[in-house]
């Protein structure tokens, strides 16, 4: 077998296995890591297809920006809010597998039996080298044939940014100043650890309940989305309403 085929099979195997890992991993962070591996391999596939610029764009945009943001959000979301892996409906699981298998057969049959070929274009490797390389060639196509689409894309991205800001902004503007309800303060560790001093109201010494639930394994991953930092920190008197409310559902109570 020629070298390019061997390399293709290596890359393809790794990317398919990584894609399976995305679907099958129990921990969503593991899914994200698998997706990173898969996308890096897809960038390799793009290089094999002579699309170097696209490969780099794939790495910068997908792995460098989108998946970093996904991991960011994964760490922001309280793991108790995440659905557990096991309780997905079995019906959905079997149906998904069957539909997938059927679709794979259909698409496979379509690929093998396809007969129509598009007319050959001008972008042969020799022509691409003549204009200076893949980047220059793609640039010329983008800014001549697809200029309008390019402008529309920039509009779409602007609207996307505005929409994201509007969605993720706290409900009332006043809340951003002051207590920071519902936003994440990356600049202050107060409110992320129950043992830390309580801030403005915290003239009382730290009180640690001897029989409080000891979070261990999943502890660091469930603390970040804090609606009110002062609720998390322990004060004599009004203690930990949010954790108390959560414990009420499990039956144990910490209130005096």
């Amino acid at each position, binding site marked *: 077998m020629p070298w*390019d085929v061997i390399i293709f099979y290596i890359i393809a195997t790794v990317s*398919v296995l990584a894609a399976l890992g995305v679907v099958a991993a129990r921990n969503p962070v593991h899914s994200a890591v698998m997706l990173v591996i898969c996308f890096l391999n897809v960038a390799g596939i793009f290089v094999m297809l002579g699309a170097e610029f696209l490969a780099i764009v794939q790495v910068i945009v997908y792995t460098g920006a989108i998946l970093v943001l996904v991991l960011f959000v994964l760490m922001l979301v309280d793991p108790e809010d995440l659905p557990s892996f096991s309780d997905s409906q079995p019906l959905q699981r079997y149906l998904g597998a069957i539909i997938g298998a059927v679709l794979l057969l259909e698409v496979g049959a379509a690929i093998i039996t396809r007969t129509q070929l598009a007319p*050959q274009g001008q972008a042969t490797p020799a022509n691409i080298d003549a204009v200076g390389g893949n980047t220059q060639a793609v640039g010329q196509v983008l800014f001549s044939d697809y200029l309008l*689409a390019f402008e529309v894309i920039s509009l779409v991205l602007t609207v996307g940014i505005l929409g994201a800001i509007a969605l*993720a902004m706290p409900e009332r503007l006043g809340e951003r100043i002051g207590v920071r309800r519902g936003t994440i303060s990356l600049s202050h560790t107060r409110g992320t650890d129950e043992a830390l001093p309580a801030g403005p109201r915290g003239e009382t010494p730290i009180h640690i309940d001897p029989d409080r639930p000891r979070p261990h394994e999943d502890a660091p991953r469930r603390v970040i989305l804090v609606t009110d930092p002062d609720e998390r920190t322990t004060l004599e008197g009004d203690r930990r309403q949010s954790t108390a409310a959560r414990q009420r559902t499990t039956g144990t109570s910490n209130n005096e």
Partner: protein
Amino acid sequence: MSELGVEHFLFLSAALFIIGMMGLLTRRNLLVIFMCVELMLTAVNISLVAFGWETNTLNGQAFAIFSISIAAAEAAVGLAIIVALSRRIRTVDVADIHELKD
């Protein structure tokens, strides 16, 4: 198939697309579903670039660049929705998000 042809890439693309689709159908975590959508978009990009490679055109690559830009916009809005959801109704389980249905 001992010579590298467009079929290789099309099969890879189909495999990735269908794996992504199965994840989309079976998983309940909104973030994993989001990742599966990204996987499907990438799988389609492979097909586009492979067709362009076969016919010596650059249209496939141009389409793929547009598709990546759309994916970036989709990521921004999608993740903002997930953050807003987890803040308001404290869940990212698709089975629990049914406010519009009721």
